[in-house]
């Protein structure tokens, strides 16, 4: 038996109220008012497809140090680098066993995540474990329908042959050069075609064709499907396709259009994770991914589903939002404005790659040092032990600090230093079990934050160099 062994998700905390998009833009396109219901997830300035992927993996499998999947696959069409494998960055941030690990970025289609899941399942067929993470940070033009419909988020699925919670029954794929939208080389935004054509010639034909082939292969009746996942920003399409296929209306997965928005290629996996949270043993789950053809995967939920839960899951993250009503902040965070950032933003952002490579134990993996002579934990790792009673030379071993619980010892909210979202919070964090470091903080709630606040550390963007197209990452303390 091979199939899904764990699932998880991540949604940014900020939820842009769609009303504010309409308030700003309805003068130009009154049609936007009709879409202005609910909210959508919105990356903080220091989140992107990589940072969200780290979080989604962690929600799926917990703090990762010591875990040894054979492969980590990352699906996204919004990866921050065209040539630097993002899945490797994610793997190092997770502290996976990179000395024995396959990685791959899968991109260029809304179907990338379902295709990636199929590849992960191929690896599972060989008896190994693999994890597929899908993550998307979507940008859209001001006053576009996409701006109303798109959201940011990530989800992760682990596959293997032990403790399977949803067995792969069958899969089928079609490749069709149907261009509902595209994003050309060097382009920031999607260019789409009329929705009615996309619906009638795309969704309503390609998906049924693929699913029918799958069901025939599996010998399963459409009426027996308990969960039908069709990620799309066209609200009525899932029901129309379900009806055409003979799938029960109750099986249709909510596309979360008014709470998340469509998270691009991550959406299929996000919805899969969401449905698995609600699934019962024996349920048949039909997952489709649409984009230049279609992937269709059929899973059967096992008894083991009861024992495997994500840390927070989609429902947990849905409940953990913070309403954001500042449309300008959304545009700023997504670099959609030519904004005056001040002279203090003009620092040297050069990426000294050789120094970065040396520092990556700390910067990518948040490794400290643990002295083998006196057990003192210290950050960063150093040639000499920091304990004045010890001071031993060259005794420190790598010590993962990612899961450590921290407390704020000192802090400030700095409005002078440049930050995309001032004030910049930073301070001294002391970790239970040893180790302390002066570090940046994110997602601070000024009402409840103070010395003594409990924090955990999260992989976030530290600096963005738009000129060179580079970005640096480090860990930030976030209030528990």
């Amino acid at each position, binding site marked *: 038996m091979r199939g899904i062994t764990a699932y998880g998700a991540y949604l940014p905390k900020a939820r842009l109220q769609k009303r504010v998009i309409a308030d700003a833009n309805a003068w130009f396109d009154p049609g936007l008012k009709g879409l202005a219901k609910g909210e959508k997830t919105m990356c903080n300035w220091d989140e992107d497809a990589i940072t969200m992927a780290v979080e989604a993996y962690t929600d799926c499998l917990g703090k990762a140090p010591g875990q040894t999947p054979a492969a980590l696959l990352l699906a996204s069409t919004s990866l921050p680098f065209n040539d630097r494998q993002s899945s490797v960055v994610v793997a190092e941030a997770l502290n996976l066993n990179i000395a024995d690990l396959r990685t791959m970025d899968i991109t260029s289609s809304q179907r990338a995540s379902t295709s990636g899941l199929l590849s992960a399942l191929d690896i599972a067929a060989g008896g190994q474990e693999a994890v597929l993470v899908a993550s998307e940070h979507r940008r859209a033009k001001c006053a576009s329908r996409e701006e109303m419909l798109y959201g940011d988020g990530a989800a992760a699925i682990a596959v293997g042959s032990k403790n399977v919670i949803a067995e792969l029954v069958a899969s089928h794929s079609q490749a069709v050069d149907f261009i509902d939208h595209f994003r050309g080389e060097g382009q920031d935004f999607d260019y789409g075609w009329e929705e009615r054509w996309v619906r009638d010639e795309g969704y309503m034909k390609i998906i049924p064709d693929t699913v029918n082939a799958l069901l025939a292969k599996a010998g399963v009746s459409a009426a027996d499907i308990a969960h039908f996942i069709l990620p799309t920003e066209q609200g009525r399409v899932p029901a129309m396709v379900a009806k055409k296929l003979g799938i029960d209306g109750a099986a249709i997965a909510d596309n979360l259009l008014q709470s998340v928005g469509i998270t691009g290629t991550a959406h299929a996996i996000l919805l899969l994770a969401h449905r698995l949270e609600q699934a019962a043993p024996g349920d048949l789950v039909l997952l489709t991914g649409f984009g230049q053809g279609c992937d269709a995967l059929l899973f059967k939920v096992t008894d083991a589903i009861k024992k495997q839960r994500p840390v927070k899951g989609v429902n947990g993250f849905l409940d953990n939002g913070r309403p954001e009503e500042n449309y300008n902040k959304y545009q700023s965070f997504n670099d959609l404005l030519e904004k005056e950032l001040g002279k*203090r933003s003009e620092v*040297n952002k050069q990426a000294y790659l050789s120094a970065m490579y040396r520092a990556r134990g*700390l910067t990518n993996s948040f490794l400290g040092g643990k002295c083998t002579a006196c057990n003192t934990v210290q950050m960063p790792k150093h040639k000499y032990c*920091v304990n004045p009673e010890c001071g031993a030379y060259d005794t420190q071993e790598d010590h993962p600090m990612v899961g450590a619980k921290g407390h704020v*010892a*000192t802090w*400030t909210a700095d409005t*002078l230093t440049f930050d995309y979202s001032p004030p910049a919070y930073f301070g001294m964090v002391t970790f239970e079990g*040893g180790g302390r470091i002066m570090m940046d903080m994110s997602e601070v709630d000024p009402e409840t934050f103070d010395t003594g606040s409990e924090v955990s550390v999260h992989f976030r963007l530290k600096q963005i160099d738009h000129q060179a197209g580079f970005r640096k990452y480090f860990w930030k303390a976030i209030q528990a």
Partner: protein
Amino acid sequence: MASGIKDKVVILGAGCSKFGERWDCEPADLMAEAFEECIADAGIDKSQIEAAWQSTGIDAYSVGPGAMPLSMGLRLPYIPVTRLENYCASGTEAFRAATYAVASGACDIALAMGFEKLKDTGYGGLPQRSRGVSNDLYYPNLSAPGMFAQLAAGYRAKYGTSKEDLKRAMAHVSVKSHANGMKNPKAHLQRLITEEQAMNAMMIADPIGLFDCCGVSDGAACAIVTTPEIAKSLGKQNLVGVKALQMCASNGEEGGFDGWDGSYVKTTRIAAKRAYEEAGITKPREQISMTEVHDCFSVTEMVTMEDLFLSEDGGAVKDVLDGVFDADGEVPCQIDGGLKCFGHPIGASGLRMLYEMYLQLSGRAGDRQLADPKLGLTHNLGGFPHQNVVSVAIVGAYGV
């Protein structure tokens, strides 16, 4: 135990430029302004200076590296000149180098010159700068007030001080320095402020507001040092001698180990103890006549009163509010306006403080002259509260 520096070296002359936004001045102009006062006071010829040290804190934004800015700026006569940089302690470090050179007998007369041209950045506050290629990868995104605001959070947490009480004590620190600066024609900021103004000013880095921050200034200050014997032979009277020169640099323990709680600066305490021992001081609050401390931010000055053992631990808020460190208080602090109002051209600050101590001890401090001061202490603190360099110097009447 080494015999220490006490009374081995005296200040022969000192000078200081007007501090401020000196838009029309090159660094060399500022140096010349301070040096002309200093050499006239010393009563020697430039050719008698045998070695010089130049302190600049942020070279990239003023004159670049090396010692040529000083040697060429003053057209020094082909003598050894060395540039020193040690954060905000740079000025005192240059003084230490010159003093040690004289004490060692390597030269008879030496010059320490500190200067900084900060106002060529196009924005307020200190210039943006790297803290090192690797450090920049993980150091927090911070400004100088942000760094020192950590002390406020740590202090509040340790002593349970309310935000309001701490902010009021911080305000008092600044109000006092503004009052002192009013009497100093060379000070950058010469205006009175009220506690209410200080408490309600624009927030810079919680809880540090605009009036909790020192001035960012252009300026230069210098001193010429020699042996007591040479000074006497030149006809100098009422000599001001060096009593102690100590510094302490963090080793990472405060930030990286578990002892430090953010409520104090460990290096200041260590340097102060050493300085008191070197100068033979056993009761600092009674024996020290006046201090010029590193009030980059008001909260730094307040915490420094405890770190110099002038206030009990946890007692600085009350002492500050009781006026202990006011001009008419028990141990006046920043009688020249301090970094707060005299200004803080980084490389010059340590020497500016010594300049004021020298004037006070020589009875030449004009409207702000204190009554019969005996010992003056200067203190510089550069870096972060948890990893920094600190200098403590004590000067006083020679032979007393």
